[in-house]
């Protein structure tokens, strides 16, 4: 079975982001970029499916600027067999990405698409659900366990207050939550091998997809800062403050 994994290039999770002075967005120039951590989990899961003999080929797809090739090379080093970049400098919103992925899915015919539940830049948590909708496929979001058999998959999902298990018919879209797996480290020999794996470049136009943004960002600001409070000596002083000053207990 062919598995498609969608990966996004985002500001590295360790970077403290700064809002641009003109309020137009967040500073991304000269900032360390990485693969969205949830997408890394998605890729790891695909590689494990291949190692288990369930997946036969892993296709990594990214949409965005030319620099996303780096992210795709990382994906190839983790274990994807080949990669496709849909290259555009237009700001891509989740609906547009879902439409691009749908066009790729139509060409490539994977039986399973795995991606992160959300990207840690725009925190939208939409693309997987939208892709499933556009394809008319089943969906299982926030997966913490995935068992794939020929025509079906059983997915355990992280939901408010516990876990829920669904049986879904393939083809399907699965989005990953934190506890699905722990991604492997990329090794140097695999980085070298990845350089030789095929990476195809496409454009939204070639796929016939309109990616014009539907949401206009009017401004981006820093959130109001919380003031640091006081340090108290011990538990007694703390309870006194909570009772008599904050009046919260």
């Amino acid at each position: 079975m062919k598995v498609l994994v969608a990966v996004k290039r985002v500001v590295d999770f360790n970077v403290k982001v700064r809002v641009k002075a003109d309020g137009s967005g967040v500073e991304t120039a000269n900032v360390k970029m990485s693969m969205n951590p949830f997408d890394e989990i998605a890729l790891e899961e695909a590689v494990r499916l291949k190692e288990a003999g369930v997946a036969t080929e892993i296709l990594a797809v990214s949409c965005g600027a030319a620099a996303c090739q780096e992210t795709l090379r990382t994906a190839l080093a983790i274990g994807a067999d080949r990669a496709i970049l849909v290259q555009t400098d237009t700001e891509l919103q989740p609906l547009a990405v879902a439409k691009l992925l749908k066009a790729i899915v139509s060409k490539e015919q994977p039986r399973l698409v795995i991606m992160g539940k959300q990207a840690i830049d725009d925190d939208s948590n939409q693309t997987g659900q939208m892709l499933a909708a556009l394809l008319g496929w089943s969906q299982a979001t926030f997966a913490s366990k995935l068992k794939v058999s020929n025509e079906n998959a059983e997915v355990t999902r992280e939901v408010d207050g516990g876990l829920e298990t669904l049986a879904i018919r393939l083809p399907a879209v699965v989005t990953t939550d934190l506890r699905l797996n722990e991604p492997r480290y990329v090794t140097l020999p695999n980085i070298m091998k990845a350089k030789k794996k095929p990476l195809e470049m496409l454009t939204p136009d070639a796929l016939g997809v309109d990616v014009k943004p539907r949401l206009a960002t009017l401004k981006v600001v820093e959130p109001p800062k919380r003031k640091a409070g006081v340090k108290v000596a011990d538990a007694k002083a703390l309870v006194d403050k909570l009772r008599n000053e904050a009046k919260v207990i």
Partner: protein
Amino acid sequence: MAVLVLAEHDGKTVRKATLNTVAAAQKIGGEIHVLVAGHDCAEAAKAAAAIAGVAKVLHADAAPLAEELAENVASLIVSMAKNYSHILAPATSTGKNILPRAAALLDCQQISEIIAVDSPDTFVRPIYAGNALATVKSADPIKVITVRTTAFDAVAAGGGAAAVESVAAPADSGLSSFVGREVAKSERPELTSARAVVSGGRGMGSGDNFKILEPLADRLKAAMGASRAAVDAGFVPNDWQVGQTGKIVAPELYVAVGISGAIQHLAGMKDSRVIVAINKDEEAPIFQVADYGIVGDLFQVVPMLVEELKK
């Protein structure tokens, strides 16, 4: 202009997240209709009709809607969408699962987790784990929106007397089916609606050590939470996770124990009214957002705190 709100419910009652979402709908303006979709959920529909400010409750009750499978509920929402200028759901795991599917079918770009309404087409939402706030304007004919519930004060659960109207449910998509649920059993309040939250971090050292937080949580009638580091280390289940990739909470009192205060954690709790931090590292970033901090060994401080609270 009318606003459709997807209710979060358990078949018998509506959850508080619904009340917060109705509050967001009121900020948008227009008549508010609440959709209660499920199976054997007439009581929840009745409860929704009592919510202050609701004009009408739409009650869709059928077997394919049981367990609120995304495929079926999304197609129900789409079948009703033409009557509405806005469709809202709370940004709970249910709302986040269903609403983007409906949005894509309507060819609308969803606006996720709004924290403020500037105008009927302009909203504020956090990005980068709440480290920036973006004001976005939607050009779509129907605004499809999830609501960060902690950002809107709940409307009253009673006082309303809306009409309840039955709506036809879609046929089962046949794409997915419900297998089972493991509900975390707890006597404690639910994390996102608790008045107080006691959270532990990597500093707890082990899952067993979380037991020392229990008497504290008991005293404060608090829910228990954890940082992502504690979840990653396998100390506690993921549904305890407070932060960008877990739950967003804003209780009256948040007690962070052995939590250093990574950006990703702060994003999930910095809107709490009063924050208390207990950490042995005086330089821990958590102290920069805490109203009250104690520098010390949590294994000594927490039991002492429990003793003081008993007095």
